[in-house]
């Protein structure tokens, strides 16, 4: 059987790279730097004390050209043939492959995105001969021996393709070299006619002290970070810092890290390297042992990545833990800004839960309080996971000096419910409006006689609104009535409403779906016998007046509970008010 090889259309391949694999043409600078760095690293293997350096120049003009030079290992003529004529071939493969940044051997091709010709001059340390290679995007290339003297190393000339000149502007090239190569281990110099200066930094944040790293963050990222946490992963050979953001971020916001692989920038937007709960930090991290995807902008999701992520996450946890002793003020500040993130963390991690729970803020009937303060109020912690119920309860609870925690926000219920597991002396109790209304004082038989008429009328008035009237004694006196409802009652209101408004098919589907359930509790309006207005209403002989008072109090208690009024209820409000005004004017007349 004969065996054949696919022919790869190089032009198509370049189009593929430029339009699909890489997210921006800028990457050609990265690939050039990478080749240079790898060549120097290779030379280091043979001559450990060797001082590698990279030099970049730009020749302006109609067809601007970039020149980049390294004093690395260089290539012999044979090697040029072998490596530069086959896509996917890289001189860096082999047993020591892990020491190099590049893996794909397609790097140089990315230069064809911005240029129609690559010229490469190279001399191997093993040879005296300088070789010139000239490659074109259609796949053709020439090789010639050059007589000129050259030190071992490689020089690449890249001339701008028409339409891509702006990638060759001096400021653009410098910026891109800094962007990708800021922390590369060898000095990168930019030279022009006047002088030559170093583009990359001497130290990376992960090599700095904390103070240096913070100063660097201030200057480079223009952010006054609260602190910098050293990050380390042995498995991934990762080093980095996690800057604590000085402002709150939205919960679940994707916080991306700036990630370097072997000190070359991989991407500023890596979101897989730190655990998702750590959205309050910005990482600047160098990794040596993870595999980037072909586009070199993210990592492969593999078991190793999980391990590295956990190791890095542990660094952040350990930092927070030691802060309790070392710098409680800073911790308080961090919690104040990032409590949402810390809540997420504490929910999952018992050790952190124990440490932080007392410091975390919750909304209560007395306003925002730390759990520690809530615990001081009473040995039992009362909470409700429903926003609606919290609103109904809060006034009465406050009047009765009762601290109720609103746990309707994400994770709060879980956090409170976890308390007894951590500290068995703490009791928790879930409350709902009935918890309070049940404690309201009942009326005596004699008093019940007085209010009989009033409640009868109130029930007639409230019936269309699926609401039931009752009367009790409760604090505060100034509160004439309390509206309470529950999720079920609200759901049934919606069922009824939707059945009328939807098409025949869905109306019957809703009918069938809800058929099995029996209509549960109604909403309740509980009048306060101790309230002076209610007293007067009860005593009033005027049935019309009683009716109007019930209507207006119903509306008022809806408003107090922040319930938006429905059309029907708005009508009630308008008519009720007008009639009350008329009544008042009649009385004065």
């Amino acid at each position, binding site marked *: 059987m004969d065996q054949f090889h696919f022919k790869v259309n190089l032009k198509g391949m370049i189009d593929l790279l430029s339009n699909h694999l890489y997210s921006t043409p800028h990457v050609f600078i990265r690939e050039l730097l990478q080749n240079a760095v790898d060549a120097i690293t290779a030379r280091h293997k043979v001559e450990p004390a060797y001082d590698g350096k990279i030099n970049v120049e730009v020749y302006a003009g109609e067809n601007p050209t970039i020149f980049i030079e390294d004093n690395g290992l260089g290539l012999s003529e044979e090697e040029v043939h072998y490596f530069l004529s086959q896509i996917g071939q890289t001189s860096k493969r082999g047993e020591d492959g892990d020491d190099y940044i590049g893996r794909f051997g397609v790097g140089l091709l990315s230069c064809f995105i911005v240029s129609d010709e690559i010229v490469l001059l190279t001399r191997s340390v093993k040879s005296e001969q300088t070789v010139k290679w000239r490659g074109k995007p259609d796949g053709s290339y020439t090789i010639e021996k050059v007589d000129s003297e050259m030190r071992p190393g490689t020089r690449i000339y890249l001339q701008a393709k028409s339409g891509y000149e702006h990638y060759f502007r001096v400021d653009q090239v410098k910026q891109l070299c800094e962007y990708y190569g800021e922390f590369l281990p060898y000095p990168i110099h930019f030279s022009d006619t006047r002088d030559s200066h170093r583009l990359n930094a001497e130290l990376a944040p992960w090599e700095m002290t904390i103070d240096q790293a913070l100063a660097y963050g201030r200057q480079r990222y223009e952010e006054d970070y609260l602190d910098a946490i050293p990050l380390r992963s042995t498995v991934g050979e990762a080093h980095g810092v996690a800057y604590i953001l000085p402002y709150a971020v939205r919960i679940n916001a994707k916080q991306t890290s700036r990630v370097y692989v072997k000190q070359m920038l991989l991407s500023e937007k890596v979101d897989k390297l730190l655990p998702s709960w750590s959205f309050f930090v910005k990482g600047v991290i160098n990794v040596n042992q993870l595999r980037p995807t072909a586009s070199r902008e993210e990592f492969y999701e593999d078991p190793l990545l999980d391990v590295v992520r956990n190791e890095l996450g542990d660094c952040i946890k350990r930092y927070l833990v030691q802060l309790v002793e070392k710098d409680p003020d800073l911790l308080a500040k961090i919690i104040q800004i990032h409590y949402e993130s810390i809540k997420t963390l504490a929910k999952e991690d018992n050790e952190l839960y124990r440490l932080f729970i007392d410091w975390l803020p919750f909304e209560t009937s007395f306003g925002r309080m730390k759990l520690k303060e809530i615990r001081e109020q009473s040995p039992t912690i009362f909470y409700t996971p*429903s926003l609606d119920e919290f609103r109904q309860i809060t006034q009465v609870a406050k009047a009765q000096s009762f601290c109720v925690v609103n746990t309707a926000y994400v994770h709060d219920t879980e956090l409170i419910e976890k308390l007894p597991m951590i500290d068995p002396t703490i009791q928790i109790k879930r409350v709902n409006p009935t918890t309070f209304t049940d404690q309201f004082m009942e009326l005596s038989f004699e008093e019940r006689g007085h209010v009989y008429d009033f409640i009868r009328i109130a029930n007639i008035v409230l019936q269309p609104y699926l609401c039931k009237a009752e009367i009790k004694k409760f604090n505060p006196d100034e509160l004439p009535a309390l509206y309470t409802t529950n999720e079920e009652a609200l759901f049934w209101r919606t069922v009824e409403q939707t059945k009328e408004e939807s098409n025949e098919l869905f109306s019957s589907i809703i009918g069938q779906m809800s058929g*099995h359930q029996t209509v549960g509790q109604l909403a309740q309006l509980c009048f306060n016998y101790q309230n002076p207005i209610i007293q007067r209403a009860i005593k009033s002989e005027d049935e019309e007046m009683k009716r109007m008072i019930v209507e207006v109090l119903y509306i008022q208690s809806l408003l107090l509970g922040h319930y938006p009024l429905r059309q029907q*209820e708005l009508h009630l409000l308008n008519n009720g008010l007008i009639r009350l005004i008329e009544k008042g004017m009649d009385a004065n007349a």
Partner: protein
Amino acid sequence: MRDRYYDLIYEAMDLPYGNSKVALLEEAVRIADAHLSSSEAYNARMDLTNAAVMSGRIEKAILSFAWCLSYYDKQENREDTHSILWHYKWICENLHDFPEIKKEKIEESLEDYRKRLLENGYGLRSYYKLQRSNALHADDIEKAAHYFELWDQAAHDGMTDCSACELDSKAYTLLRNQAFDQAYEVAKPIFAGQISCQGVPQATYASFLLPLLEQKRADEAANYYQKCREMIDYTFLYEVTCLLEYLIVVDLVKAVSWFEEFLKDAIASFVPSRRFSFYRASVLLFEQLNEQQLTSIQFPNGITPEQIRVEMYEIAERFDERNQNDHFSTGIEKKRRKLQELKGWYEKL
């Protein structure tokens, strides 16, 4: 009021799926109904439908969607066709979860969905997938296979699920057909992390746990269990139940605490099919425990194991009556045998 409405919508947008998100959108709907335009009421309800489906509150999604569909049909310029159909697809996918909704109504709504697809120039791929899931629900394997084939062959279009969901459903169907190797092959890109979405890979990991044990690949199952556990961040009882069944086989203590953690969600769920699966796993868990172990379980006030057992049978009966077969009732015994068999093997490891 308009400010409050938008505050609620934006606040909800930031929240993960769950009851809090649903509650905020319900309030936005109430405000819009009372004070704002009907197009604002429509938009809030569309968001609510989405959030309710993703948070397992299908009953609420059905209500808000029904309103939206009727509003949409009344409009002269129907601009939101894609969204409406997309939401319609979700609703159709979940109707069979309510045993009180009659077969004919489910068929009728699928037919209505099919017509709307064709009227709007879409192909039927998404429709076939729904028919397949509906047939699987009633354990009509033949019908499911028929629609599986149609689905597999039909062209993709704007109404097709994302490729992660599609692969997941494909693998799930193959697992139901006992075609483990094929299913595993299909799911490979998901396991390799090449594609994912909101619900995938969690759902895929969950579906493969018991089948992997059946294949005697305990290490792999343990690995997927761990991954799935770490990823569950909003409660879909499906994954929770799969994990519970897995734990019954491999670790009873963990199974008990997992059960304790999610029982309240199962009780709170208005969706009978989801309650059923969780209760079934729970009952099979109780059966594995001795008296002392059983009394160590923390039940919420007033709930007993017996009640859970009774309700499980009661729901199974309601489903079987609607589906006119005994799939749900006999499924309990089938699952019991499967777990016992796996447990016997696992304990010998």
